């Protein structure tokens, strides 16, 4: 009897704490559908009259900010992920399979990059990108992400490739497959769990990144969604309904992905960090 009560109490406490924790997100969700004077008067109340004006206001902005910056973010994130995955998995494979003093040093040299915060290198990075005529462009930002996140990719992949038996490579090479073909046909498909961790980690970092797009792409054109929000949010200082709608729409893709692939998210993060 008492243990039943205990478990019920435990459940109630969990629900209460979760609700309090959820409050800021609830605030966004309910106020999207309320008129502005209602938001000011009673920010936490449930909407009595649903309105879609706030969402409409954002979706029909004359400058199409949401669509263009969202598209930019999608392009930048997708291409960055692609180049990072291709190059870091191949580098890691090469370094792990050709074990020697030289490659071990090279691996350490790459891992050094994990320790470098962007704020430290941003000033010289701007110089380098200017010299390469890549400043103020999406390509510049993508190239920067590639250089900056390849160490993380190598770190994840090199740990994972070590667990794949070498006999697989040897069997393939006896059957006459070259190293490149062995990698893409046999090894890379086995790296699936690692690749999904890399996609989740780096995808989140790139999508949510704020400082680098702001400085590398510049404030005027072609911003990403995160930098775009920062730029326009001042316009809504009194219009909380539109501000909440903007934030909701900007995070929607990531929230949907998270809810749909929750298991992979959690596994990706824990396997990446616990085994790494």
């Amino acid at each position, binding site marked *: 009897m008492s243990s039943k009560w205990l478990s019920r109490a435990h*459940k109630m406490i*969990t*629900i209460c*704490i*979760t609700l309090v924790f959820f409050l*800021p*997100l609830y*605030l966004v969700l309910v106020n999207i559908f309320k008129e502005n004077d209602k938001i000011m008067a009673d*920010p*936490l109340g449930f909407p009595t009259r649903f309105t879609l004006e706030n969402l409409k206001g954002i979706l029909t902005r004359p400058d199409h900010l949401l669509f263009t910056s969202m598209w930019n973010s999608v392009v930048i994130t997708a291409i960055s992920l692609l180049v990072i995955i291709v*190059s*870091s998995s*191949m*580098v890691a494979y090469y370094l792990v399979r050709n074990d020697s003093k030289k490659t071990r040093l090279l691996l350490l040299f*790459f891992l*050094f*990059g994990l*320790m*470098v*915060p*962007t*704020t*430290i*290198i*941003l*000033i*010289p*990075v701007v110089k*380098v*990108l200017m010299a*390469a005529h890549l400043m103020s462009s999406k390509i510049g930002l993508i*190239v920067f992400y*590639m*250089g*900056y996140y*390849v*160490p993380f990719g190598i770190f994840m992949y090199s740990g994972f490739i070590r667990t794949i038996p070498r006999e697989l490579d040897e069997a393939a090479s006896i059957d006459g497959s070259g190293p490149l073909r062995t990698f893409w046909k046999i090894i890379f498909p086995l790296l699936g769990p690692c690749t999904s961790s890399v996609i989740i980690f780096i995808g989140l970092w790139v*999508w*949510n990144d*704020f*400082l680098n797009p702001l*400085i590398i792409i510049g404030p005027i054109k072609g911003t990403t969604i*995160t930098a775009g*929000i*920062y730029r326009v*949010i001042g316009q809504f200082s009194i219009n*909380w309904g539109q*501000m*909440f709608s903007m*934030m909701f729409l*900007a*995070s929607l893709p*990531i*929230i949907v992905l998270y809810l749909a692939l929750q298991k992979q*998210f*959690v596994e990706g*993060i*824990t396997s990446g*960090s*616990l085994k790494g």
Partner: protein
Amino acid sequence: MSHGLIIYLGLVILPVIFCVYYSFTNFNPLYPDFNWIGIDNYKKLASDAEFGHAIYVTCLIAFIVTLASNGLGLLSALLVNFKGWVYNASRTVFFTPQVLSPVIVGFIWSIILTDEGVLNKLLGYIGLGGTSWLANTSVVVYSIIAVIVWQSMGFCTVVFLATLQSIPSDLYEAAKIDGCNRWQKFKHITFPLLAPGITINTVMLLISSFKVFDHVVVLTNGGPGTTTETISLKIINMGFNENQMGYASSMAVVLFLLIGIISVVVVTLLKRREVEY
């Protein structure tokens, strides 16, 4: 393969070297010529009270965020480490802020914390007077810390849950036979075996909160005055707004050394207390 290496060299290693080099110059993008000025920048830094304050603020944020997120993450992991839809839903909620952009989290909380904001209204309902959470110089740092903790706690929860599930259940059975109570089980089995989780959380949180930038820019932009300026904020302002890139680079070198030293010390200390049963 070689592309990866060249881009890494060009955009990470070269900039690190340049950053160190610039820190010994009076480099300013508005003037084409700049000179080697030796350690003048570092001398100036040593007597720069505002930079000292930025180091203090950054360390305060890093220290409390790491402690609080670990503590609350552990409590919440113990709370939801059960089967049932309530606990699953609760886990989902705890982790959600982690996937959001710090900029968006900052904006949500700035609406909650402004003078006419949601928190003060709520406090008004129950008859308490609030304060200016983002303008009162004695609480503003803690407001920022609270926001960061809200966002990063879910990461700790998830890591702790995974660590908890990796503890073999026969240890608990043995403890039961030996007549341990709940607290003894936690103290002698759970807590020591959580060590790898603590190491990961601490390292991840320390590194990320030492370079904290987004939250601060959105919530206070370093204000009121320079009360909440962190090292990263100072580097960016000095480098890109005041154009003193040489001086900003010397700050960057200090930040880099700080992060390097602290991560080495913390990793060695925490690794030493990890145990294997």
